[in-house]
């Protein structure tokens, strides 16, 4: 719950933190899920990374569509919706990708 005015900007710090926590939550879920998917279908190399970026950008678009007009009430900039968590999510993605790739793809083992 933030309030935005033309000149005075009244922001609630705890609300911002909470919104970011939720964004993080979405990103982690998406990373883990897309990592599992990529591992199971056996994506390798660049395609795997491409898959991750497509997934997380898709999630950002879904969020933007979901918030609709009220977007500026919850996040200061649309850009932060797309970029702020994408790198931290990559770590999780790589882990799950590697894990399920190792578990499922017999050809390497």
């Amino acid at each position, binding site marked *: 719950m933030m309030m935005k005015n*033309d*000149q*005075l900007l009244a922001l609630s710090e705890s609300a911002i933190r909470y919104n970011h*926590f939720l964004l*993080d*939550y979405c*990103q*982690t*879920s998406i*990373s*883990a899920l897309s990592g599992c998917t*990529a*591992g199971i279908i*056996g*994506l*390798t*190399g*660049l395609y*795997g*990374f491409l898959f991750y970026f497509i997934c997380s950008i898709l999630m950002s678009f879904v969020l933007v569509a979901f918030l609709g007009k009220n977007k500026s009430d919850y996040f200061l900039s649309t850009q932060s919706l797309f970029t702020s968590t994408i790198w*931290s*999510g990559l*770590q*999780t993605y*790589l*882990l*799950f*990708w*590697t*894990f399920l*790739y*190792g*578990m499922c*793809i*017999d050809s*390497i*083992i």
Partner: protein
Amino acid sequence: MAELLLDSKIRFWVFLPLMAITFLVGIIKHYLFIFMSNDKTVDKQQLTDSQALLRSRLIRENGKYLPKESFLMRKNYFTNEDSGFFVKQKRQSTVKNPMSDPKAMTEMLKGNFLNMIPMVVIGGWINWAYAGFLCTKVPFPLTFRFKPMLQKDVNLVSLDASWVSSASWYIINLFGLRSMYNLVLGENNAADQTKAMQDQMSGAALSMPDDISKAFKAENESLTITEHKWLLKGIEQSFLN
């Protein structure tokens, strides 16, 4: 180069257990932390000091919402050269010798127990039990620079850099599962040990700084240089237009 083949037993006896161990240790740590943290009693002095620091920080940040006199009054209370709160309060540094204070020692032991011991013990145990296996292969090509990172204690020069050794797999898990703890346990969980390590390095692990006189001095300085800029000046203009 000929394709390497891994025994599929490695998958079930090394690869999978390592991930499970890392994850479960994190969860157990979280609950141990909740179990062991009892409500501490703070002494009066410490409490007053931390509350004063908090209030001074609020004045610095939100002083712009007050009229000038009110702001200056508060600033003077804290930073006056002769009688200001931060100047007058002489605190000897409270870094206690842990040996002389048994209470501090148990606290310290607990902190160490929860942060250091699992790291060392689990890490050592994993090194001992699972060392020297190749676990898996990352599904993307890597350059040779990554070899020391991904192939700890497997020294084979001609091996492709995408292979991951067990010790490295443990470390990758340690970092990669961090955000999963957030997902499973909620925010501010104790399992996030890497964050605790960062805190220790910057000295912000406790809300109470160890050396209160230093903190007072720093706060005094930053409050002294804070100028008052009234945010509400001319607010009627936005209504008139």
